[in-house]
C-alpha cells in the first residue's frame, strides 16, 4: 500500500497563505509507504507558512521532499511536527533566492519504541541580506531514535546573510538514542552564522520540583516534555495544539527511566 502525493503552492506578489495538514492513517496489517513532494514558491513580498503534524501509524515508511523558494522580501516558514510512522525521512528546504528573503524552519520530532525520526532542515542563502532561523527539538524514548540532518549553505555574494540554527535533543532512557549531523558550507565572509546544539535528559531538579507540587512522576515528565515542545505548540492553531499535547502525553506513558 502506497500513497504518493504532490502539493504545489505559489503565492503571488504580496500575498499570504497558511496551509495546515494533519497526517494520520488507520492501522494496516502490512508496512506501507507514504512518499510526498511539497513545493512552495513565494514571489516578491509574499509569505507562506506550511504546518504539518505527522502522526502516521507505526508501520508506515514516510519519505518526504519539501522544498521552497523565497524571492525578494518573501518569507517561507515550515512548521513540521513528526510523531508517527516507523521511519520518517524529511528535510524541509528553503532556497532564499531574492534579496531580503527570510526563511524559518521549526521542527519537532518524537521517536518512541521502534521508531526512527530522521528529520532536519536545509537553508540555502543565494542572495544578499537574507535571514534564516532553524529550530529543531527532538525527544527519543522507549528505545526510539531521532536524527537531525541539517544544511546551511551560503553562496558567494550573499552579503549580509544571517542564519541561526538551534537543535536540542532530549533522550529519556538508556535504550533511546539521538544523532545530530549539521553541515554548514559558508562561502561568503560577510555573513553571520550561529549554531548551537544540546543533548540532555530530563533534569532531576525539574522533576523533583514538579513532583513536590503534587504531580505524579508520569504527569511531571509529560509536563516537562510538553514544555520542551512549547516553542512549536504555540505556533499551532488551538485544536492542533491541544491534540499534540495529548499525543505527547500518551507517548510519554511508561517513559519514566
Amino acid at each position, binding site marked *: 500500500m502506497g500513497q504518493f502525493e504532490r502539493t504545489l503552492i505559489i503565492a503571488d506578489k504580496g500575498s499570504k497563505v497558511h496551509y495546515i495538514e494533519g497526517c494520520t492513517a488507520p492501522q494496516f496489517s502490512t508496512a506501507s509507504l507514504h512518499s510526498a513532494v511539497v513545493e512552495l514558491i513565494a514571489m516578491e513580498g509574499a509569505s507562506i507558512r506550511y504546518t504539518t503534524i505527522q502522526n502516521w501509524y507505526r508501520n508506515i515508511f514516510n519519505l518526504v521532499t519539501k522544498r521552497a523558494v523565497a524571492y525578494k522580501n518573501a518569507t517561507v516558514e515550515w512548521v513540521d511536527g513528526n510523531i508517527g510512522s516507523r521511519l520518517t525521512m524529511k528535510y524541509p528546504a528553503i*532556497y532564499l533566492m531574492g534579496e531580503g528573503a527570510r526563511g524559518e524552519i521549526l521542527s519537532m520530532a518524537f521517536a518512541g519504541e521502534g521508531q526512527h525520526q530522521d528529520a532536519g532542515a536545509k537553508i540555502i542563502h*543565494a542572495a544578499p541580506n537574507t535571514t534564516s532561523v532553524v529550530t529543531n527539538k527532538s525527544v527519543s524514548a522507549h528505545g526510539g531514535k531521532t536524527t537531525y540532518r541539517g544544511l546551511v549553505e551560503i*553562496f*558567494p555574494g550573499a552579503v549580509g546573510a544571517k542564519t541561526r540554527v538551534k537543535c536540542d535533543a532530549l533522550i529519556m532512557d538508556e535504550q533511546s538514542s539521538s544523532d545530530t549531523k549539521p553541515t554548514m558550507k559558508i562561502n561568503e565572509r560577510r555573513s553571520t552564522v550561529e549554531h548551537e546544539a544540546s543533548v540532555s535528559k530530563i533534569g532531576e531538579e525539574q522533576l523533583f520540583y514538579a513532583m513536590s507540587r503534587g504531580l505524579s512522576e508520569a504527569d511531571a515528565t509529560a509536563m516537562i516534555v510538553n514544555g520542551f515542545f512549547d516553542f512549536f505548540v504555540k505556533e499551532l492553531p488551538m485544536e492542533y495544539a491541544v491534540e499534540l499535547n495529548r499525543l505527547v502525553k500518551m507517548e510519554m506513558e511508561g517513559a519514566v527511566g
Partner: protein
Amino acid sequence: MLLCNVEGTLYAIEDVCTHDGGELDQGELEGCRIMCPRHGAYFDVTTGAALTLPAILPVETFPVRVEGDDVWVEA
C-alpha cells in the same frame, strides 16, 4: 569541456554542473539551454548562467574561435 552548437554558432562551457559537480554532456541541448541529466538544472550555454534550480552558480564559459575546419577554444 563541452562544445555546443547553437544554430550554427559554437559555444564552449565547462562540462560540470555547478549543482552536483557531475557532467553535463549527456544532457539535452534545447536551443541555447542545456539540461543537466541528473536533476534537471538548466544552463544558458551562451553566457554560462544557471537558469533554474537546483543550480545556483553559473558554469564557466570559454571563448571560441572558428578558422576554416579548426575550432579553437581558449581555456
